């Protein structure tokens, strides 16, 4: 099988199965329902379990259970549904259970709308739930990258015993694009055996207990310090980004996911008009890439964060630029998708201002 035409939501489901996911739990919400429909049909064929829970709260706790038993487990939802899952995600992080969570973002706040959005950046990268925890957050820009990242996400989750989030959006979930599912690169990570899993085999391998409760503050602090060490390792090792035409760029846009590919269009338009524009595309939103900013801050005149939000990632861009150059923002929200020409108009405004 070479390149086939597939809807983003279906491709990510198949990619999870290829990555070894045997369990999927979910609760319906647009624009990600095709994942559930696909998994309902496909998982039984590979000896897996699909289950539509009675709520998002229930579904995420099923993930807690299946992940705790050592299985590879996928859960997907969209913005309001992901909000409902935050308690469970915090428990999963606290209990150190690997799982892959996909948020096919839509416009908010509240029930919001069902068209694409990127306004859950803060929620995804800053924990979302309570307590000191982080998870690796990956943001693909195409259906192929979403498929490739799925394998990676499961590996990262297993390596660190931590939830991993894939941040997609309604555009990516709903559109169809060519994808090659057969040549997904397997990582060469050395994944530790899951000796901690609660498999019901206590009489063979000793008792394992999975829990996120610790009432002794000294012990809980020790647990938090251990987690911190793990997060530091993740922050050091799991940075991913793309630099696109940054070498001699006067202005550098920072964008992820759907917005990043729109910005690439803007860059082509800009170059036809003699404007040197580049793109830093964080693929890992947490850990947020610092290096591409250090490599460009001397040369670039300004940065602009382009998002389908009212300005969230722009805060990380400001931290990374750290005052060396001005940081601007352009965003559309509520399900509106920015057009390349509108971004270009903003770029011209900014360059007019810094000359």
């Amino acid at each position, binding site marked *: 099988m070479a390149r086939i*035409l597939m809807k983003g939501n279906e491709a990510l489901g198949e990619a999870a199965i290829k990555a070894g996911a045997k369990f999927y739990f979910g609760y319906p919400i647009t624009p990600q329902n095709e994942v559930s429909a696909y998994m309902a049909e496909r998982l039984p064929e590979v000896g897996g379990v699909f289950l539509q829970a009675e709520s998002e709260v229930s579904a995420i706790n099923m993930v807690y259970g299946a992940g705790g038993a050592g299985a590879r487990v996928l859960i997907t939802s969209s913005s309001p549904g992901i909000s409902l899952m935050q308690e469970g995600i915090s428990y999963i992080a606290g209990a150190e259970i690997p799982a892959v969570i996909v948020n096919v973002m839509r416009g908010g706040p509240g029930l919001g709308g*069902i068209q694409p959005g990127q306004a859950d950046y803060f929620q995804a990268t800053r924990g979302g739930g309570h307590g000191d925890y982080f998870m690796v957050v990956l943001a693909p820009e195409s259906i192929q990258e979403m498929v490739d990242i799925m394998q990676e996400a499961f590996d990262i989750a297993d390596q660190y015993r931590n939830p991993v989030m894939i941040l997609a959006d309604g555009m990516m979930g*709903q559109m169809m694009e060519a994808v090659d599912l057969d040549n997904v690169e397997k990582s060469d990570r050395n994944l530790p055996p899951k000796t901690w899993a609660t498999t019901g085999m206590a009489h063979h391998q000793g008792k394992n207990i999975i829990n996120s409760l610790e009432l002794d503050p000294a012990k809980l602090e020790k647990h938090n310090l251990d987690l911190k060490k793990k997060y530091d390792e993740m922050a050091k090792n799991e940075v991913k980004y793309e630099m696109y035409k940054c070498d001699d760029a006067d202005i550098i846009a920072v964008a992820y996911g759907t917005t990043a*590919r729109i910005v690439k269009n803007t860059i082509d338009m800009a170059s036809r008009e003699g404007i040197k524009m580049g793109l830093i595309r964080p693929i890992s939103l947490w850990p947020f890439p610092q290096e591409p900013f250090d490599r460009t801050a001397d040369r670039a005149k300004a940065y602009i964060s382009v998002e389908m939000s009212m300005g969230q990632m722009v805060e990380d861009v400001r931290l990374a630029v750290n005052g060396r150059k001005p940081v601007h923002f352009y965003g559309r929200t509520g399900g509106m998708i920015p057009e390349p020409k509108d971004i270009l108009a903003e770029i011209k405004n900014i360059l007019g201002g810094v000359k």
Partner: protein
Amino acid sequence: MKYEIRLSGEGGQGIILAGVILAEAAIYDGLNAIQSQSYGPEARGGASKAEVVISDEEINYPKVKLPDILLILSADAYKKYFKNISNNGIIIIDDTIQVTENSNAKIITLPIIKTAEEKVKKPITTNIVALAALQNITNVVSKSSLEKAVFNRVPKSSIEFNKMALESGYKLIDLVR
């Protein structure tokens, strides 16, 4: 080369499936293609549309901004989409729709619905007749890839009359010359 294509009509005409088939045919041709459609309440009732972008280069912006090729199969779709076409674009419109407005695009009026109803005797093949006509007029995809994509996406039991729909659709080009 890059084509932005908008297929429009009404619910039940198989507009979305036509978009999927066209994008798949482009991929069989070794090109890049993105298919997108409206979803949710936007997609219910009234005009139905599917968008396909086909290019031999990487496609970044995933939606249709200004179509080069526009298919119109219903009066509602005509009202909604007729004006939005590139200057040297092609509009393929069913002959049941009365065109009252001017356009800089080339307008090709064809009996697509009638062909599906009277020639193929399967109104359900309106979308396939339309795709075959569009293929023969524009050559955005090859005939062999279009056929492969049609047979891949329609139920097995319907392959015979879809073959007839393709043949009848190709022949509509005779009315253009």
